[in-house]
């Protein structure tokens, strides 16, 4: 019995997505939360490339490009928010930030 490798890729990315999601729910440091979002985005990228291979279509890889652009934009804005936040309240974690103002 030869292993069905594309399905193994899909399983791996499902587990990776779940780990990232759990991290996003559990951790309170905003930087670590951004890293967990990156994990989830990468799991989705892996799924896209696997689908592209299974369906023999290059679009799966093209879409990953757009996901990467969105991820870069998200990191830029997220880090700017964190820097702006840390300037006012250096020790704040995600639980302390209930208001959208300093």
């Amino acid at each position, binding site marked *: 019995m030869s292993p069905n490798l594309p399905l193994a890729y899909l399983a791996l990315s499902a587990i990776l997505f779940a780990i990232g999601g759990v991290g996003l729910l559990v951790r309170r*440091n905003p*930087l670590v939360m951004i890293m967990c979002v990156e994990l989830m985005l990468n799991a989705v990228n892996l799924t896209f490339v696997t689908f592209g291979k299974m369906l023999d279509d*290059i*679009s799966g890889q093209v879409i990953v490009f757009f996901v990467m652009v969105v991820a*870069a934009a998200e990191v830029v804005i997220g880090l700017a928010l964190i*820097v*702006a936040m840390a300037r006012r309240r250096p020790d704040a974690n995600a639980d302390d930030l209930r208001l959208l103002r300093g």
Partner: protein
Amino acid sequence: METAVFIVCALIVLGGALGVVMSRNPVHAALSLVATLFGIAVLFLNLGAQLLAVVQVIVYTGAIVVLILFVLMLLGVDEDEDLDTEPIVGQRILAVLVGLFFAGAVLAVIVVGKDAAVTGARSATEAISPSVANIVQIGRQLFTTYVFPLELTAGLLTIAVVGAVVLSRRPKDLQPIPEPESMTELGDDPLTTIIEEAAH
């Protein structure tokens, strides 16, 4: 060979992901993220997506993680975090249950459906060709089928740059919190007597 590469990379990816979620020190989490992203780059190579593997290394580990580490060092928040206390009771159990539920649901679909779990038309835009270079095919699709989304990403990146500049600009009216005024100047008796006066 492909299977062996997959198994090794899957272990690296999952280990790195667990490292991101569980390490106390944010710097260790960022380095674990590098391991995960590299593993995924090799998996991209394994799937025949050479261009994406290179872009993954350049953009993710070369730019995004470095940016995260840069902010980490800039803010000086690289001390260990207290992970033993749970601020909201039962939050971790619930989060792990949600994660297990999600992973279990997707894995069930994969196990039950096998190849039929992936539906859709085959080769709807362009079939992956072994003779044409990967980058040629992606470039052709980006500038024909996906040209409008490509233009939109240009707008998105511009907005992100402008937003980052606006957000991280130091506001003019930001004052440090002033020292509290002296109590004696406000008319209260001093709490401690000065020793020299007491000697007279």
